[in-house]
């Protein structure tokens, strides 16, 4: 499965906590945890944090764990 585009609502839903998923990839887990903490500290940073979350998927999409995580997104 391809990585959803940066404009896909899944990223902002994950950052805001409207959607919660349990991931397998360590890289995704760490970045997801950090953006979830950061959105509490800085609510205006939502779009930038959504972009960061997209990017960790996009740059790691060949990893087996990230491929499994991609299937959970949509």
């Amino acid at each position, binding site marked *: 499965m391809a990585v959803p585009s940066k404009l896909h609502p899944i990223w902002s839903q994950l950052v805001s906590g409207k959607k919660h998923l*349990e*991931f397998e*990839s*360590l*890289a*995704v*887990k*760490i*970045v*997801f*945890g*950090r953006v*979830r*903490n*950061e959105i*509490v*500290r800085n609510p205006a940073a939502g779009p930038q944090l959504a972009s960061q979350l997209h*990017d*960790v998927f996009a*740059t*790691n999409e*060949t*990893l*087996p*764990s990230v491929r499994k995580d991609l299937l959970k997104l949509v």
Partner: protein
Amino acid sequence: MKQPMHEPAAVAELIRAGKKLLLAGDERLFGSLPRGSWVGGTIPYFMTDKGGINTHDRMYVTELPPYVPEAAIKYYDEKAIANIFGEAKPHGFSFIMIPAMSKTHVAFAVNAPTYPGFASRPLLGWITGVDLAEVGKKLPRIFNGESGESYSDGAIVMHVGLPDHKVAEVDILNMFKPGSGETIEFLEDGFTATDALIEGRRQSFSAYLRAKSVDIRLPLVADFGGAMINTSFQGVDESTHIVSFYAPVFKGVKYKIAAAEGDYVDSFARKMPHDESGQLFFSCNCILNYIHAGLEGRKTGAVTGPVTFGEIAYQLLNQTLVYLRISDV
């Protein structure tokens, strides 16, 4: 994993044969090695297939597989290290060593998650150290085998490219889980704390630890998107009421004092994924686990490697086993 403990003469033969190596050992042993495609860091503690050992005579050797087409060695100072993710191979992994207690150790610990492209490529490695009897007398070091230089600050990195049919993945094994006690938050990022928010109420953190009789051999644990990340206690100064840590705590992150899961070796055997297909390429474990769990002379299965003053999986970790698997795509 192959038997990786070698005397320096055998390591020198591997280097002369053109092998690409990741080395760990006592500082003295590096002096006799020829230049070549290797990086190294100091530590005398290791997990081996015969159990945990402290040796100043042999080195732990991790040999890159022959299918690795390229491995670029680069030294970074405390500022340039911010470029590490951007300079990684597009398909592969990067291996890093940083001397404990150096400026780069602190810079990486605090800032790694803000580096451009953080976690965009697999990064693993460890914080180099010395014999615990020599802390404060000798400095941990890192070595660039290509140039023959060694450093007590900075980071030595091997950026490893992999062929298209191979993929590398970093993961961790944390034997601790968040305990059932109060939620702890800190007022600012840093390696020390005086006050903390305990269930939202500000109070002296050292007084809290004393009142609760907290065993500070247990780390703080925070849930980062499902990854349990430890921050270990370094100590409590009862005169200044300052609590110090081996990695920074971060404002806004919710921590718990860890709960241990029984005997370390028994828990390890239950939790560590088996490596029947020989995909496990490298692992390292923490000196605090080695000490607190009494790992000297005890075995952790086929999972071996240096015992370190800090572990790196994208960012600095404490009291955690870090490992890298290389598998077929």
